[in-house]
């Protein structure tokens, strides 16, 4: 069971788009909650919450063509990954490091996404290490005169690495079909934006490379979608990269190993809850009469069933076995 089964077969109107976005966001949030609960029950060693980043993921994912575009995601992009085709089972097997984990059969920690079949490029743990890979994927598209676009996500923290500079510069020189998306939650673990940079917007750096940079409310999926659509079209047309900065908020600690009470107040987190995209977008759907109690109950129950199924599946899935631990260091030379 996966998100695709609850998504509309084709999106032709804004209402369908909005509902599908909400479905992706809700499933991501409920998976997040389940992972946290599993972690607290002693299942799994490492949860990386996405709560607060769902609107951004859902917003941009529906602006791309998941049948041909590449995703080189930020680690909190669960909603987008679901749209790309990762299933709840995939996600919880990845979380528990079980053999069916598509990202690496349990070799990688959680949130180190990857699936070649789905055109999701593999993430290491090294912040921004993936950004130049995304540029390489975009270079290959141009080289082969293919029309696919590469979406590359990273955090505000990651934007400080030299990788991002060299990558953006390279992409700009070759006008590559890529969209860079900085998901700015104003924290690199505990380090606030003011200690990471002396500017308000990461997007302002785009001008220094020669392509547009734009700031968007990352808590609003439709705003992100619109921004992403423009950037993706630009890339697809051959006009080169765009940098989108989505301002988001991370509701949970950095990971299950973090204690966020050390660096931010509960009041701050509560205040930010008011902007929670799950809440505000739900309210919008209610107002637009795209959602009512009945359809919401049905949706929540569909989602719960999917999450329950995934958790069951993952908890019972096989471990990586010792012999397999030694495999795939090198490929077969032909």
């Amino acid at each position: 069971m996966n998100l695709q089964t609850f998504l509309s077969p084709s999106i032709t109107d804004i209402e369908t788009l909005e509902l599908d976005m909400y479905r992706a966001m809700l499933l991501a949030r409920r998976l997040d909650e389940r992972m946290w609960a599993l972690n607290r029950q002693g299942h799994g060693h490492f949860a990386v919450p996405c709560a607060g980043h769902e609107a951004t993921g859902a917003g941009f994912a529906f602006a791309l063509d998941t049948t041909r575009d590449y995703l080189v995601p930020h680690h909190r992009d669960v909603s987008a990954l679901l749209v790309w085709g990762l299933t709840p089972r995939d996600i919880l097997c990845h979380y528990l490091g079980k053999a069916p984990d598509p990202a690496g059969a349990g070799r990688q920690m959680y949130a180190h996404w990857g699936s070649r079949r789905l055109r999701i490029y593999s993430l290491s743990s090294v912040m921004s290490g993936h950004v130049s890979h995304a540029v390489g994927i975009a270079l290959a598209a141009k080289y082969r005169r293919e029309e696919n676009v590469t979406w590359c996500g990273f955090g505000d923290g990651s934007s400080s690495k030299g990788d991002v500079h060299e990558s953006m510069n390279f992409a700009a020189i070759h006008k590559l079909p890529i969209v860079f998306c900085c998901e700015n939650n104003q924290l690199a673990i505990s380090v606030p934006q003011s200690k990471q940079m002396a500017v308000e917007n990461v997007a302002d750096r785009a001008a220094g490379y020669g392509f547009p940079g734009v700031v968007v409310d990352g808590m609003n999926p439709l705003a992100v979608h619109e921004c992403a659509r423009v950037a993706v079209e630009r890339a697809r047309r051959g006009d080169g990269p765009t940098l989108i900065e989505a301002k988001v908020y991370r509701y949970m600690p950095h990971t299950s190993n973090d204690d966020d009470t050390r660096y931010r107040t509960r009041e701050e987190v509560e205040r930010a809850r008011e902007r929670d995209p799950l809440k505000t977008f739900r309210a919008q759907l209610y107002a637009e009469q795209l959602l009512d109690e009945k359809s919401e109950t049905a949706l929540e129950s569909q989602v719960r069933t999917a999450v329950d199924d995934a958790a069951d599946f993952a908890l019972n899935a096989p471990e990586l076995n010792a012999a397999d631990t030694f495999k795939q260091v090198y490929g077969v030379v032909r």
Partner: protein
Amino acid sequence: MHKSIIETIRDTLRSEMARDERVFILGEDVGVLGGVFRATDGLYNVFGAERVIDTPISELAIIGVAIGAAGVGLRPIAEIEFADFIHSAFDQIVSEAAKLRYRTNGDWTCPLVIRTPYGGGIHGAIYHSQSIEATFAHFPGIKIVAPSTPYDAKGLLRAAIADPDPVLYLEHKKTYRAIKGEVPDEDYIVPIGKAQVKRAGSDLSIFAYGMMLHESLAAAETLAHEDISAEVIDLRSLLPMDWETIFESVRKTNRALIVHEDTCTMGLGAEIGARIAEQAFLDLDAPIMRVTGPDLPGVPFNEIGEQTFMVNAQKIADAARRLAAF
């Protein structure tokens, strides 16, 4: 005082900073959070944001800025949040810090300490488990220490801060809270370049450091019940290495077992094995032997994978039995 390694590091940092105004800390999350392992917990409150600098995710700049500051007389202690991420600063460490004194004929120098948690066994998977000592041990101009006890953690950290050259101070994550011991309140230094015989023995010599020292000691204890007398040596200083102590032990036991958690090929055991074969060859009654992590790109996240990778007392004891029986 009886303390854990992490407490010892924290206390030593605090007292060295109190003693010497030139000493400051920079790294990711070292300030308000007190470090992801809490190695710097409380220091921000005592010394303020100028002496405990929370940096952006910029390993290259953390080291590069520290090199510059060290050059003009400060004594930076740079923290790399996980040793796995030191590779972004590799160029700064090996091309700049390691070569500065030599290339300037001693005119400019780099008294810099780089602290970083390394090692596996804590479910850290491929990128939060690596051992990084072997790579850096190839670069003359830097020094590398890896304490395995609270006593040495203090003595070597003080030696590193006092040293006129760049020192990589490696903290095995698993020892942080697991290993406790007596730490004198007085000032003392454990000189860089000296190994220590931790357990005397006559049948074979086990050379280890970091968490593997403790696994080796456990193995030696097991072996003792089987009448195999293993000498266990804590290398502590990985560059320079204390060859005299190593050769002396081989002269006594005539058998060398080198243990490290890092992968085998070109791990530190390579140099140790080769040196023994070069300079203590006639003392050897058996081949040198290595017990190391397997030659895999990383420690898997999955626990079975992780256990498959990690070296432990049992694997060491098994090898030691074979070596003793040779």
